[in-house]
């Protein structure tokens, strides 16, 4: 697959603070690349540099094989951006807003009208077409923001935390819409600090911290870095220190913690850990109300690599 974006040694500083530090990566055609990192990790700065909205100190950026610049209008015609902040006109209706932003790319009125309808359908705002932004809920406003960014059917889409502060229904709608865009052939750069979204959506993930790439790969590749095979959580009303010590002696157990009636057992490797745990509890006559197992998350990866939680 072709590279849609090529970033090489990108560096951007604000005075003495390096917001992006020697960043290099590629984005393949048709994939969803997740840029994951806590607030201030350099996700938005990286995106703004790629879009030529920010001047950068060093590095090279190519989009569709062309060097990106403020006057690269042919390249810009293929790009759609959904910013973190809602960027719509309060004075225009939902339809008017989508039509305006689509109209910056599509001059033909008939094509434009069709594209606007498609965008309304994609984000589920057909019923709200004549409403003004101030009449929309936060979630619907976010959907409008997305529709404005993608109405012209771009080949490359940048989505900068599009689900911040939205209700679950709108979030699902937005995520479904993004999948649909990918299925239609768009390449997507998705920045977020919600690891669940990255796990659901992204084909490949780049984890950023302090402007540097600390890990990249597919979800499974990244989770392999966590050195955790499985986490088993057991709700136990009471445990004696002797019983607790017993868990640490179980095969493959790397870590045990017990707090507020919740026992967490981390397995470094091994299969059928949950079944073995149930057997152990039964054998030692330890009563429990609930038990479940989890695969490691990207947060565990982040924790493993940086020693801090993703949302710290």
């Amino acid at each position: 697959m072709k590279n849609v974006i090529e970033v090489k040694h990108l560096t951007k500083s604000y005075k003495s603070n390096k917001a992006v530090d020697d960043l290099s990566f590629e984005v393949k055609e048709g994939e969803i690349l997740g840029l994951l990192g806590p607030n201030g990790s350099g996700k938005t700065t990286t995106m703004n540099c790629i879009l030529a909205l920010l001047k950068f100190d060093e590095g090279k950026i190519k989009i569709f094989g062309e060097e990106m610049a403020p006057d690269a209008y042919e390249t810009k015609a293929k790009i759609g951006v959904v910013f973190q902040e809602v960027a719509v006109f309060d004075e225009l209706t939902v339809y008017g807003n989508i039509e305006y932003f689509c109209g910056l790319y599509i001059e033909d009125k008939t094509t434009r009208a069709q594209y606007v309808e498609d965008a309304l359908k994609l984000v589920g705002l057909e019923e709200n077409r004549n409403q003004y932004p101030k009449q929309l809920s936060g979630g619907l406003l976010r959907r409008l923001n997305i529709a404005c960014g993608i109405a012209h059917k771009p080949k490359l889409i940048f989505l900068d935390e599009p689900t911040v502060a939205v209700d679950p229904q709108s979030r699902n709608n937005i995520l479904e819409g993004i999948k649909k865009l990918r299925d239609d052939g768009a390449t997507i750069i998705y920045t977020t600090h919600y690891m669940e979204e990255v796990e659901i959506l992204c084909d490949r993930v780049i984890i950023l911290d302090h402007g540097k790439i600390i890990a990249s790969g597919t979800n499974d590749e990244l989770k392999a870095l966590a050195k955790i095979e499985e986490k088993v959580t057991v709700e136990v009303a009471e445990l004696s220190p002797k019983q607790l010590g017993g868990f640490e002696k179980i095969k493959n157990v790397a870590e045990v913690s017990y707090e507020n009636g919740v026992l967490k057992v981390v397995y470094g490797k091994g299969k059928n850990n949950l079944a073995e745990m149930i057997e152990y509890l039964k054998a030692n006559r330890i009563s429990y109300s609930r038990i479940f197992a989890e695969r490691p998350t990207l947060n565990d990866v982040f924790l493993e690599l940086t020693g801090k939680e993703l949302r710290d």
Partner: protein
Amino acid sequence: MIVSKAFWKIAIKNIGTIILYTIILLLFGSINMNTSTTTTQYEAKKPSIVVFNHDERKGVTDGFMTYLEKNTDIKTDYADDDRLKDALFYEDVALALDIPENYHQDIALGRNPEIRMRASAGYSAELAKVVVKRYLTIAQAYAATNLSEADLAAMIDKTLEKNVTIDIKSSVDTSKYSKPTRYFSFANYSILACVITIICLIMSAFNRVEIRKRNLISRTELKQMDRVLLKNCCIYAFGVWLLYIILGFVTIGSDVLWSAYGLLYTINSLVFTICATTIAYVLSKLVHSQSAISGVMNVVALGSSFLCGGFVPAEYLPDSVLAFAHILPSYYYIDANNKIMAIESFDWNTLWPIILNIAIVICFSFAFVALAAYISRKKQKIA
């Protein structure tokens, strides 16, 4: 282009503001138009005087008394000296005359007798003195000719009957143009308010950082977008001006505006509207908060209208205020309106001050355009 379409959609969304300022122009402009600043009718005022005649009413004394009765308001009941002093102090009486005994005989004999005059401090006293001295000067002039008492009195009366006829060469009734002057001067406020509010509201919508970022990453060139916006601002301002000219024809009357005077008012207001557009364009570069626009508009439109004579005729404003107003384009616009009203004949001497004022307003426009370009260049660098 889609940018123009969005521009006019936003303008129409704010049509209430345009209607509001138009109603203000019609309402207060009409009231203002009926406030005439030119006095066209004069009425002679008779000064109040008190006469103590110690002479017999004969000859010149009789003629003098008849003259005073005709040209002044002779008060009585001031026999008490203290009361008379109070009346003179409070200007209830302008002048008190004491005609001495044998006055008519002494005049006839050419002796030049003196009439004692006590005057108050006001303007009426000066007027009364002029009236009295007019008779006495003529009387003394004829007294030197050795005429008989009867002939002397007759000659004075005959001389006083002579009137000077003044021919007014100008046939232009300038008061006819006080209405359009008041209308167009008040329009200073409406034009500024309407143009600044709407242009700033529209431009602030386009200049919002998030919107501008979206425009920046689009395939449309930002300079081209700015040109389209500026063109639409000019079209909008021209529309406002045209609306106010049409309303001017309705409220003032086509006979006044369909004349050389009307042409001058129209040109002057058009130039000022262009200047108002440039002011709005500069402000739109500086003010991005929609809530702040109303405040800024009030400061600019109301402030300049008050300071430059848009609401109150300039002649009633203190010199210090007018001196400050010289730095505002509104002053030259309103001053030009006043000068148009004062034109009695169309020649270079009368037109030149008006042309100069219009040229100054054009210079202001260029200065604002340069300022807007400077601010744009400064802000172009996002990073």
